[in-house]
């Protein structure tokens, strides 16, 4: 008897194609796992059992008819609840959209479904993706599967936790300042933010339009590569004007050695204030592992990266304020009853529909875009963005990828970080990549020595070199499998493994 906990996405798809088990059996096993595990992890805002079983039935019918199955045939996938999927609500974990039914399906979601995936549900998140712990969800918190007293990270915390708890084999998240890579690190799974434009954002509720990017979570690098293929194979999406044609086979060079390639390390970041010793130690081991596999290690400088948080917290709130202006309570979203004027209805709908952090970010954006302030902060922030981008371009003349932490610490306990501006600082290692539009991936290194929580390395690379990032990520995973950390890719968290999910 097989368990979904130990099967990769490729193994599930192959098993369905070969008739070892049916897609319906896989869907049922995933739903059983969710049923027995969800009360402890609370990763989902909505479990779409009907959609899952219907999709699985279609996959099985295709096989019975002798049709070729997609590369994700029968693979259980979960979607962050800012992605539209007809037949589900899309709430962005906000009271504003508590009853919002998806009226169309996002391209990223559709492409995974077209590849044969089985949609098991919509995952919890920080409200409108504003946050780093998923605690700003208007509905409930999500627990870290490795220690349910700790945060899963955010904003895509539900997607990371669902994969770490073995409730889904793959999940999609979105990353505006680290919202895929940081929760992936906290939950001990692989999480990739592809290059800006690599994945269509059509049907994904916008936060920061020059920063947002959709990407996959999985427990193995190979699964993430498989998802990247499904997301990009059809090329640029005509429904998203920022979407780029970057279709390559992400599996093709996955297992190639990294011998002769160069990994950059930034001394200034490895000494950064706030970086915990156990994370620094794990990173040192990851660098040594790559070196032992023949990669050259060089030091590179990113002198302006210290200003990345400041630049981000100018640019992102301004874009968020602009994007969230659409929530006026008229066409969709919470509508305050019994208002006499439209202005009153708008102000009260927004006051009562949005949570605290969503209001804070919009207020900050409104201020920064106002006359006089724009010239002091907004325009200079976009100039500093140029400087940071140039820093990276110079660094990538000396190395193929840069290795750095995904987050300064492992997952903290609920309540340990509550001050919003202190929370913002936890994105210090991820945010600069969104500012430049480059790709990044978080790869598990096992458990940290002090907190015994998952710790990860982040790899960043030049724009549209995501395939090389995956190759390096796979090399780190090989190092982990050979004794650097837990081994076996990133396993399902032990408290959740084996509870339902048998095939």
């Amino acid at each position, binding site marked *: 008897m097989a368990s979904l906990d130990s099967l990769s996405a490729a193994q599930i798809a192959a098993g369905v194609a070969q008739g070892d088990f049916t897609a319906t059996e896989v869907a049922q096993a995933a739903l059983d796992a969710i049923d027995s595990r969800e009360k402890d992890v609370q990763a989902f805002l909505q479990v779409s059992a009907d959609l899952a079983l219907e999709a699985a039935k279609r996959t099985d019918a295709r096989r019975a008819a002798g049709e070729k199955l997609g590369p994700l045939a029968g693979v259980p996938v979960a979607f962050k609840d800012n992605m539209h999927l007809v037949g589900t609500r899309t709430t962005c974990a906000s009271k504003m959209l508590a*009853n*919002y039914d998806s*009226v169309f399906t996002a391209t990223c979601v559709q492409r995974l479904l077209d590849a044969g995936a089985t949609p098991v549900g919509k995952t919890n998140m920080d409200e409108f993706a504003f946050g780093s712990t998923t605690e700003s969800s208007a509905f409930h918190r999500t627990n870290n599967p490795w220690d349910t007293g700790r945060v899963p990270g955010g904003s895509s915390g539900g997607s990371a936790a669902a994969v770490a708890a073995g409730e889904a084999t793959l999940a999609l998240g979105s990353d505006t300042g680290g919202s895929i890579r940081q929760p992936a690190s906290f939950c001990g799974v692989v999480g990739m933010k592809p290059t*800006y434009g690599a994945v269509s954002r059509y049907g994904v509720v916008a936060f920061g339009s*020059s*920063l947002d990017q959709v990407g996959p979570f999985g427990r193995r690098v190979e699964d993430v590569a498989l998802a990247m293929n499904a997301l990009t194979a059809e090329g640029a999406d*005509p*429904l998203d*004007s*920022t979407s*780029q044609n970057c279709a390559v086979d992400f599996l093709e060079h996955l297992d190639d050695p990294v011998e002769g390639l160069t990994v950059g390390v930034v001394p200034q970041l490895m000494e950064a204030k706030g970086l915990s010793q156990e994370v620094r130690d794990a990173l040192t081991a990851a660098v040594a592992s790559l070196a032992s596999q023949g990669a050259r290690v060089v030091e590179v400088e990113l002198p302006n990266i210290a*200003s990345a*948080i*400041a*630049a981000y*917290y*100018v640019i992102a709130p301004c874009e968020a304020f602009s994007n969230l202006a659409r929530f006026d*309570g*008229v*066409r*969709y*979203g*919470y*509508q305050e009853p019994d208002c*006499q*004027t*439209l*202005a*009153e*209805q708008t*102000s*009260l*709908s*927004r*006051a009562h529909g*949005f949570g605290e952090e969503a*209001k*804070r970010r*919009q*207020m*900050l954006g*409104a*201020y920064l875009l*106002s006359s006089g302030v724009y010239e002091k*902060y907004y325009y*200079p*922030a*976009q*100039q*500093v*963005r*140029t*400087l940071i*981008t140039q820093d990276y371009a110079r660094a990538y003349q000396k190395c193929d990828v840069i290795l750095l932490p995904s987050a300064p610490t492992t997952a903290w306990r609920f309540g340990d970080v509550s001050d*919003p*501006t202190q929370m*913002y600082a936890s994105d210090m290692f991820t945010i600069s990549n*969104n*500012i430049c539009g480059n790709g990044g991936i978080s790869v598990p290194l096992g458990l940290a020595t002090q907190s015994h929580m998952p710790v990860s390395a982040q790899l960043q690379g030049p*724009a549209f070199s995501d395939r090389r990032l995956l190759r390096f990520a796979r090399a780190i995973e090989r190092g982990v499998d050979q004794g650097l950390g837990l081994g076996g890719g990133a396993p399902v968290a032990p408290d959740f493994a084996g509870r339902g999910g048998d095939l």
Partner: protein
Amino acid sequence: MALSQDDVAQIADYARIALTPSELEQMTTYMNEAVDLLEPITHYDLDGVEPTFHPIGDLSNVMGEDVVDDSVRALPIDVALHNAGSTHDRYFRVPSILGDSEEDF
């Protein structure tokens, strides 16, 4: 210079977010802390540095043929109205934008 509660109240009005007095007080504290965090931006000499409004350079707009294609994007009226708080026949329904009585004109 720190933002006062009056300043923040004006921003809230502009942002169309009605804040209660206690929310206004907390928001003022937050706004000042957040703006302090942005300080590094003001320390640069940025003469001659071009801004980057879009992260991936050398991109241009994707242009489509000027042909109506309802099959792809147009929402049927019932679908478009489905999520609205109030509707009337084929329309979204909103309160008066000019006030509720003729004296307001």
